[in-house]
């Protein structure tokens, strides 16, 4: 029997970067495959290559025996591949029913009227995904989960042989997750081949028949959800290696007003909940790690602290609220974020990037700080004149951290510094962090997926899952209490 979807040797390069390298898998009719990997692992690129949104550089994508690799998207769609996007933008003036009808239309310029059959079919589909009550309403009046249902409804309407689903459960509550699991399960029951793309095994484990894990564009492991979760390489990718901890004794003044105090923080992205009632605090001189898988809400938390996203709840800095302050004034006030995306000035030299960080200080002070940083990251001194864009990933990360440190922060927020970096670089970064921790009185808030990286330096740990803080404690207890359920 030939598989419905058969991908072989798929490779995709963006300029010099190999985003996907020789990936292959098969999905039979009535089977669900989970494709997992952290941000930047290339899993979304695989999905886009199958759909024809990106053209693969090499490899084949066989749909029921026909190679569709390199076809335009609309032909691949007509050939029988459907996709459920994570972020869809519905039309503003069309009702839910009209959106479903759209998916039922043929690709024909002369379609000037639809027959009743189409309307009836659309109504049936609306009923199946649980939208019949709201099918005459406009999308902007509906909650987030219903908009996600609409995306599923469109995929059902297309009746594709192969369904690709991007992060099926992002932004949903646990009750809604159950509903969606049932709906996706029904695809399997009807003999479709389903590919679920997600950050981690855990969220899709209950639904998938098999899992394929990717990291840095390459194949890591394949098998049942349990097998993949037990796989050594997968554990190292997600958790790092063996967990070591080195919490320092509680620092003095623990009961004083904490430096940073976040209470009841909520953030919405459109209608999706990105953070729900999150409270954390960071004391002076403390090193606090927030660990959680990609998509759990770490970046949103940090962006709220830096006033980059609107939020509800309160954030106090040294006892005073940060509400109403601009991102710039918060950064000048001592909370400096080194973001996951690094946000370097690519066409400027390493030195110019660093100088911009030190620009708020007199030249002499900035020069002193620069000297100290060159001691901490000698490689940056050697690369001073080079454009930031041309640095390796690890060097860029060091530059991003160094640039943030040029601002002499009181609180340094580090968001996923290990993202997409090779193990040897992680070690260097880890050493630099330890030097920072031992030789300065800097306060650090670190967000990480990689627990092995996050724990050794931490004095205290928060675990964030599904937009909420679910655990808090010292790192020694993490391994016993939270570690097992983490992945």
């Amino acid at each position, binding site marked *: 029997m030939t598989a419905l979807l058969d991908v072989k040797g798929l490779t995709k390069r963006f300029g010099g970067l190999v985003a996907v390298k020789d990936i292959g898998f098969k999905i039979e009719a009535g089977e669900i495959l989970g494709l997992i990997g952290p941000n930047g692992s290339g899993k979304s690129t695989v999905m886009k290559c199958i*759909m*024809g*949104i990106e053209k693969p550089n090499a490899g084949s994508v066989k749909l029921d025996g026909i190679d569709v690799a390199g076809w*335009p*998207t*609309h032909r691949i*769609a*007509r050939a029988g591949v*459907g*996709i459920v*996007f994570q972020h*869809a*933008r519905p*039309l503003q*003036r*069309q*009702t839910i029913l*009209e959106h479903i*009808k*759209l*998916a039922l*239309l043929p*690709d*024909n*310029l*002369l*379609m*000037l*009227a*639809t027959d009743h059959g189409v309307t009836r079919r659309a109504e049936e589909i609306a009923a199946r995904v649980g939208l019949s009550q709201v099918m*005459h*309403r*406009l999308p902007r*009046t509906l909650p987030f989960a219903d908009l996600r249902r609409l995306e599923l409804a*469109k995929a059902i309407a*297309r009746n594709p042989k192969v369904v690709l689903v991007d992060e099926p459960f992002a932004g949903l509550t646990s009750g809604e997750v159950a509903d969606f699991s049932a709906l996706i399960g029904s695809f399997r029951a009807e003999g479709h081949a389903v590919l679920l793309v997600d950050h981690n095994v855990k969220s899709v484990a209950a639904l998938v028949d098999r899992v394929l894990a990717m990291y840095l564009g390459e194949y890591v492991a394949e098998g049942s959800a349990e097998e993949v979760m037990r796989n050594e390489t997968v554990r190292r990718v997600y958790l790092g290696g063996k967990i070591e901890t080195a919490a320092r004794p509680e620092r003095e003044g623990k009961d004083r007003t904490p430096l940073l105090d976040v209470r009841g923080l909520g953030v919405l992205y459109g209608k999706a909940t990105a953070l729900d009632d999150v409270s954390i605090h960071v004391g002076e001189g403390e090193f606090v790690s927030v660990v959680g898988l990609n998509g759990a809400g770490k970046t949103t938390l940090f962006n709220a602290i830096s006033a980059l996203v609107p939020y509800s709840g309160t954030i106090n800095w040294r006892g005073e609220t940060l509400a109403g302050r601009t991102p710039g004034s918060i950064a000048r006030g001592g909370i400096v974020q080194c973001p996951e995306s690094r946000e370097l000035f690519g066409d400027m030299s390493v030195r110019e990037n660093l100088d911009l960080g030190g620009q708020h200080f007199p030249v002499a002070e900035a020069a002193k700080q620069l000297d100290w940083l060159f001691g901490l990251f000698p490689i940056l001194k050697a690369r001073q004149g080079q454009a930031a864009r041309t640095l390796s990933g690890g060097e860029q990360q060091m530059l991003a951290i160094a640039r943030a440190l040029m601002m002499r922060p009181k609180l340094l927020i580090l968001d996923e510094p290990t993202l997409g970096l090779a193990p040897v670089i992680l070690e260097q970064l880890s050493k630099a962090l330890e030097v920072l921790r031992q030789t300065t009185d800097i306060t650090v808030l670190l967000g990480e997926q990689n627990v092995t990286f996050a724990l050794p330096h931490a004095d205290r740990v928060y675990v964030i899952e599904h937009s909420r803080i679910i655990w808090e404690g010292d790192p020694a207890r993490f391994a016993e209490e939270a570690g097992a359920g983490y992945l």
Partner: protein
Amino acid sequence: MLRSRTFQVVVPALLVLILLPLGVNGYILGLLTLAYYYAVFAMSWDLLFGFAGEVNFGPSFLIGIGAYTAALLNHYWSWPIPPCLVAGAFAAVVAGAVLAIPALRLTGPYFGLITLVAVLLLQNVLVLFAGITGGEIGLDLPDVLSIDASTNYYYALAFMTVSGAILYGLAQSPVGLILQASGQDAIEAAALGFNVAKHKLAAFCMSAFFSGLAGAMLIFYLGTASVGTVVDIGVGVNVIIAAVLGGRRTILGAAVGSIFLIGAGEILRPLGQLSTFVVSAIALVVILFFPGGFMGRLLQSGGRE
């Protein structure tokens, strides 16, 4: 529901417009006649921008091609008016397709830029071959639609009504739905199996057809074809302002915006040169404070919560 609501507004409005020649003088009829042709320009533009999501900065390229094709045929070969109109409309479609097929591959401001440059080039070519085209002064036409103001008025009204009905119907049809989906998110539309380029090209040709036809009608009303009335950037600018003012993505709003624009220009005529200033200021205020335009407001309040 929405459609019947639109119907309830449009039919009485049309009745009023039909009865208008009984009550107003020829001068005002003349203005409205002009406004109706502009309405077709603006509705065609809205089909392309509001539905297909492509910004055409040079509507007067299509208008001008249609107008000058008809004018040249009438002036030099004495073709009667109807075949001139047909030829003008088809010339606009052909020229539009030649422009759009490569240009639709471009994204962002580049499509708009190409359309803008096309107008400038057409303008230069017309001036360069002034011996044939009449240049800045224009080309006199032996034939006109009619010399009677009411007859001209009814021609224009009928033309606007029919074009409006077709464009509006198209926008509301399944094809319009596909176009709107393509304009909003081309990748998603393609993933639903729609050939986005094909649909956008069709929309461009449709827009070109009505622009060219309206351009040709307009010059047979005016009795002369000149760069200032059918090709100039200013013509295109007015068309765009009318469509945005009336409410983008509504088709009918474009017609309302055109009538408003020409009506306001006339009411403000006592201000002399300042009238353009005031009209622009009003348009700017609408864009700043009511980005949905006139019809946008209307439809918004009609939407079901």
